[in-house]
């Protein structure tokens, strides 16, 4: 008789759901799989971007977590207090504990607006908003719809953030939205970023920078936000620069889940979890694996990353339970549609070693890369269906493997970067 073993998954979002569904197919029934989350709202986070512009309804973005999990997976509600990697146990807020043979941490990233001086003070929710939460995105919608004149400033407080292109998309959509309403010439749009350009990777940064310029969106770079005076309408950087606004759209500092900070030896300064970039095994303990935004990896915090990680993570967990060496290797593959307004979008595809390049995806015949097209916009809209029906069940999308494709890409000569 085989011993029963237990895989415990903390978090029932994108990463936890993908991991659970893939593992259920991969592992024998002698392995129990449990998913724990503190609430039952699975939010389709890429949809939050569209909420302030009235382009989607909140109700369409939220589904019950449990229903995304397949048969043979136990799903429970509990708030994690801490993980004890030395004793393979997790304790919960009510005082209960659970043991595990393998722990999967899929607890994502949280917003920490209170870390920025003044941000949550008077004016928060009136003059300063975030669209990175459903409540925030909903509160912003009527304000944006009534905005006729003045300065809109979109600010990223610091990296890393979820979906690093979303603030750019917000700028592009705001430009479109204000033009549609006939008030664009009375509104200035400014993008304020801690980076030294529109994006982190040189070729994409240049293309996206050109798009911002074409649309008349000003860019303030290397701005590390120290204080937000929401009432007066001013962003102040640590080096003393000021950017005034009438409407501030701020992406707050992100960190990992709070329980990570309470768990000795598990997380870094921001509660993200140091993780092997290729095997997805945590540095804290060999039987602890990490997927998605919770990981302290040099990758975008994005659903596509989590999807591509899923295949590698689950194969390595199977190997770990069998006593084999971990040979599945994640290459840092990410891709994302960047909505640019007027029914168009740009697609980028990259990994640890290769920055986003122009060309076509996934092969020479396919969606255009790093270029605005209507087809990419349709791709972005279709992605919502794929998310619920292919990504979360843990299926691969036909023709798109977890390794980054190169067939349709143009290598850009170094001199043009």
């Amino acid at each position, binding site marked *: 008789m085989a011993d029963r073993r237990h895989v415990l998954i903390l978090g029932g979002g994108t990463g936890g759901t993908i991991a659970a569904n893939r593992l259920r197919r991969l592992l024998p029934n002698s392995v129990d799989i449990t998913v724990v989350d503190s609430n039952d709202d699975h939010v389709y986070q890429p949809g939050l971007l569209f909420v302030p512009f009235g382009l989607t309804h909140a109700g369409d973005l939220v589904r019950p977590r449990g229903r995304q999990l397949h048969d043979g997976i136990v799903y429970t509600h509990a708030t994690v207090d801490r993980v004890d990697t030395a004793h393979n146990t997790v304790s919960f807020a009510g005082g209960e504990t659970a043991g595990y043979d393998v722990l999967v941490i899929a607890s994502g990233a949280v917003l920490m607006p209170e870390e920025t001086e003044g941000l949550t003070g008077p004016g928060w929710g009136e003059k300063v908003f975030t669209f990175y939460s459903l409540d925030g995105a909903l509160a912003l919608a009527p304000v944006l719809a009534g905005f006729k004149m003045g300065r809109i400033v979109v600010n990223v407080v*610091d*990296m*890393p*953030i979820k979906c*690093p292109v979303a603030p750019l998309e917000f700028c592009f959509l705001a430009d479109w939205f204000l033009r549609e309403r006939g008030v664009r010439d009375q509104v200035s749009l400014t993008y304020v970023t*801690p*980076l030294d350009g529109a994006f*982190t*990777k040189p070729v994409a940064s240049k293309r996206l920078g050109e798009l911002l310029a074409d649309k008349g969106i000003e860019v303030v770079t*290397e701005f*590390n936000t*120290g204080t937000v005076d929401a009432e007066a309408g001013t962003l102040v950087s*640590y*080096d003393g620069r000021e950017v005034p606004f009438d409407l501030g759209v701020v992406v707050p*500092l992100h960190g990992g889940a709070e329980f990570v900070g309470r768990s000795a030896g598990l997380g*870094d*300064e*921001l509660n993200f979890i*140091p993780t092997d970039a290729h095997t997805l095994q945590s540095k804290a303990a060999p039987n602890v694996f990490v997927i998605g935004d919770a990981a302290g990896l*040099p*990758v*975008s915090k994005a659903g596509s990353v989590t999807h591509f990680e899923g295949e590698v993570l689950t194969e390595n967990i199977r190997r770990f339970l069998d006593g084999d060496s971990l040979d599945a290797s994640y290459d840092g593959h*990410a891709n994302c549609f960047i909505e640019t307004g007027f029914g168009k979008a740009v697609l980028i595809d990259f990994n640890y070693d290769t920055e986003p390049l122009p060309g076509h995806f996934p092969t020479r015949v396919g969606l255009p890369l790093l270029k605005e097209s209507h087809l990419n916009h349709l791709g972005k809209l279709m992605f919502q269906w794929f998310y619920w029906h292919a990504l979360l069940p843990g299926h691969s999308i036909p023709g798109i493997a977890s390794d980054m494709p190169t067939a349709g890409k143009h290598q850009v000569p170094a001199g043009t970067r």
Partner: protein
Amino acid sequence: MTVAPIELTNVARNEEGFFLDPSQWSEAMVPALAAQEGITQVTDRHWQVIRFMRSEYLENGTGPTVRVLGKASGVSIKELYELFPKGPAKVAARIAGIPKPRGCI
């Protein structure tokens, strides 16, 4: 303390001034590297940040962001900007001989 003049011309750096090969760096280069950033006097506080950058890089493969520096280096963000007015993360990374902090992808 007198510091022997250090030859920086043999050090391979990219167009933004970051070391291509961090193993070429030595502590003896710090005063000359700092001078190129307009820092004429390298204090103990500068050293604390530079050594922290270096150890973070060796451990994690990338230098920390300003936020992480402020939380973990023992120097507040406000003081970091006093020490490295042109931007602590990048300037300290150049002086510490490590690549540009990714922080962010």
